[in-house]
């Protein structure tokens, strides 16, 4: 027993009397399991040796954590419900926080790597008399006529993701691998650096979740500052980082010690497949899966790890010398994704594009980053209008 030399003090209310009970931690945990039956007001405990702080909080107190994060200058992004859809959004009021959900339609990617991101502006003396036909470029007489104007600098925002599921925390890990590998992307890095993550552990998935197959129900070290899980009528909040410790300490509430294992969610269906088998994906016949595909690209739009992008230079016809360069999200389901000069398109069929997405998620990512690009959220199946289920294509159902 790890915690048997740690004693806990329970403050119980019983018939309007406050009772303090001191007991060894394992016995305390027994109480904890009946938390719903016992009206626990606060739990006070010595800190465990490994320094994990854990609190049990009612939902109102959870909201005070959000207020505290805001006070510290974070923009809190959390699941909110609107029209039967749960989506991540900047919280206008802590009470908008939605904790009772299975999937969100967007993901942390949309905040760390926006679908359209201006990179910089540049000014040139280029004049466009007839766009695409007669272009006069600036000439090199005098000072250099093309100047990069740093009108855009990466925003120094402090993002706090509050109440995202473990799969979404894992998606940040994958984006880190891609965007922070040398040379690191400065725009992503600026958003990522001061990020705070409070993960709401998942108890139950729906029929599209596959986090067990890709083991994304576990949150790796460094990808959660707080772990929140339902406990009785409130929430159990434990810290996983120094910043998490500080935030919980700021609440000045009683705390319990412990380091519970990551919660394994109950899934309705489970599948098994080989993540590294590129040849296997090529060989299989996908026609029965892609027959109903409309190439709407919902799978890549709702995927928390799809990061493929395009670079666009845009100017206003009113002021053609002022050009903005943006990074715009691109989908491999579109024809122009794989088109090269002269019109040769490498991914010509629906089947090729369907397989390409899976190859990029599994064997390609495994090879490049030793990490699969699928975090098992199931968004690509749940939001597909044709309900194309790649799990059945890649593997077989095991439970």
């Amino acid at each position, binding site marked *: 027993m790890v915690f048997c030399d740690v004693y806990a003090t329970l403050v119980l209310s019983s018939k309007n009397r406050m009772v303090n009970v001191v007991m060894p931690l394992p016995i305390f945990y027994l109480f904890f399991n009946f938390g719903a039956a016992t009206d626990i007001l606060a739990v006070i405990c010595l800190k465990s040796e490994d320094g994990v702080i854990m609190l049990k909080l009612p939902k109102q107190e959870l909201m005070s954590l959000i207020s505290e994060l805001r006070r510290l200058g974070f923009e809190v992004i959390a699941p909110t419900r609107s029209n039967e859809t749960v989506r991540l959004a900047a919280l206008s009021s802590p009470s908008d926080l939605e904790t009772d959900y299975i999937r969100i339609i967007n993901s942390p990617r949309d905040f760390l790597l926006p679908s359209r991101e201006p990179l910089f502006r*540049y000014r*040139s003396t*280029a004049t*466009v008399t007839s766009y*695409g036909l*007669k*272009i*006069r*470029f*600036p*000439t*090199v*007489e005098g000072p*250099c*006529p*093309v100047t990069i104007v740093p009108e855009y600098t990466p925003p120094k925002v402090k993002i706090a993701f509050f109440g995202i599921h473990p799969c979404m925390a894992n998606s940040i890990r994958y984006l880190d691998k*891609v*965007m922070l*590998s040398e*040379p690191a*992307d400065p725009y992503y890095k600026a958003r990522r650096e001061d990020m705070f993550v409070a993960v709401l552990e998942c108890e139950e998935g729906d029929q599209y979740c596959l986090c067990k197959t890709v083991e994304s129900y576990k949150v790796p070290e460094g990808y959660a500052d707080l772990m929140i899980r339902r406990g009785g009528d409130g929430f159990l909040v434990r810290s996983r980082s120094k910043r998490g410790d500080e935030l919980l300490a700021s609440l000045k509430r009683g705390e319990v010690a412990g380091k519970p294992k990551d919660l394994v969610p109950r899934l309705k269906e489970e599948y098994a497949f080989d993540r590294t088998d*590129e040849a296997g994906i090529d060989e299989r016949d996908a026609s029965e899966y892609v027959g109903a595909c409309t190439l709407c690209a919902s799978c890549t739009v709702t995927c928390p790890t799809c*990061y*493929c*992008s*395009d*670079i*666009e*230079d845009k*100017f206003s016809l009113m002021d*053609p*010398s002022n*050009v903005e360069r943006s*990074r715009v999200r*691109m989908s491999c389901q579109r024809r122009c*994704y794989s*088109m*090269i*000069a*002269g019109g*040769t398109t*490498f991914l010509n069929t629906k089947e090729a594009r369907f397989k390409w997405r899976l*190859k*990029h998620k599994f*064997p*390609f*990512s495994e*090879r*490049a980053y030793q990490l699969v690009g699928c975090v098992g959220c199931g968004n690509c199946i749940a939001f597909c209008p044709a309900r194309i289920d790649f799990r059945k294509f890649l593997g077989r159902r095991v439970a």
Partner: protein
Amino acid sequence: METKTLRLTLINWRADFLPGQFVQLLLPGVGEAPFCITSSPSDPKHIELTILRRGLVTTASQYIRPGDAVGIRGPLGRPFPLDRFHGRDVLLVATGIGIAALRSLILYILENRKKFKEVTLLYGARFPEDLVYRDEIKSWAEHVKVMVTLSKATEQWSGLRGRVTDHLKEVSLHKDLVAVVCGSPAVMESITNELIKYGLSSENIYVSLERHMKCGIGKCARCLIPGGLLVCKDGPVFSASEISIKAIGE
């Protein structure tokens, strides 16, 4: 074919590049596109790009006049492994505009001719007017063996006729030879297959792949090829043993 070779003078900057690398050419207000450097690496103050009119940037580049200013980002990508070419017979096979990707290497070979044994350039195009660097090729022929073949030759054409694969047998192909192939994807695949049939090891066959690289630094994933390699970072030069031969034409 409407091709144009731009000779760019670099202002306050020198590009230390090697044959096989590419740059992103920025046309202010139009956009950016990747082009392989076609000039010799011995002159880092100038960069030459041979551009075939195809899309937005390449069309706009036809309107560039002497003295105009453009932007360059690079050099990017992995060059030809020249160390492995030294002291060996080299076969260069190019079709169409693919010769542009090999010109830098050819100029390097001409400048360092003693480092290489027998060098053969096999260049194929469809029509006589499709031939790029027509006048230059004549001067190359004084130092290396040049074979130019046309698949749709006119009656006036006195040179070789047919596809490049028809003339591979005229080159003395042996195991120690290094072959470099560049052309359209399907043609590169068939040439690579032919060379392997003639007994060349896939490690000694190099291809220069074309993809529409957007960022050039491995962040946009637009140049991903089967096998999970990125053409901008891991390429554009690959040996045929590093990638599946099917991936060349895919």
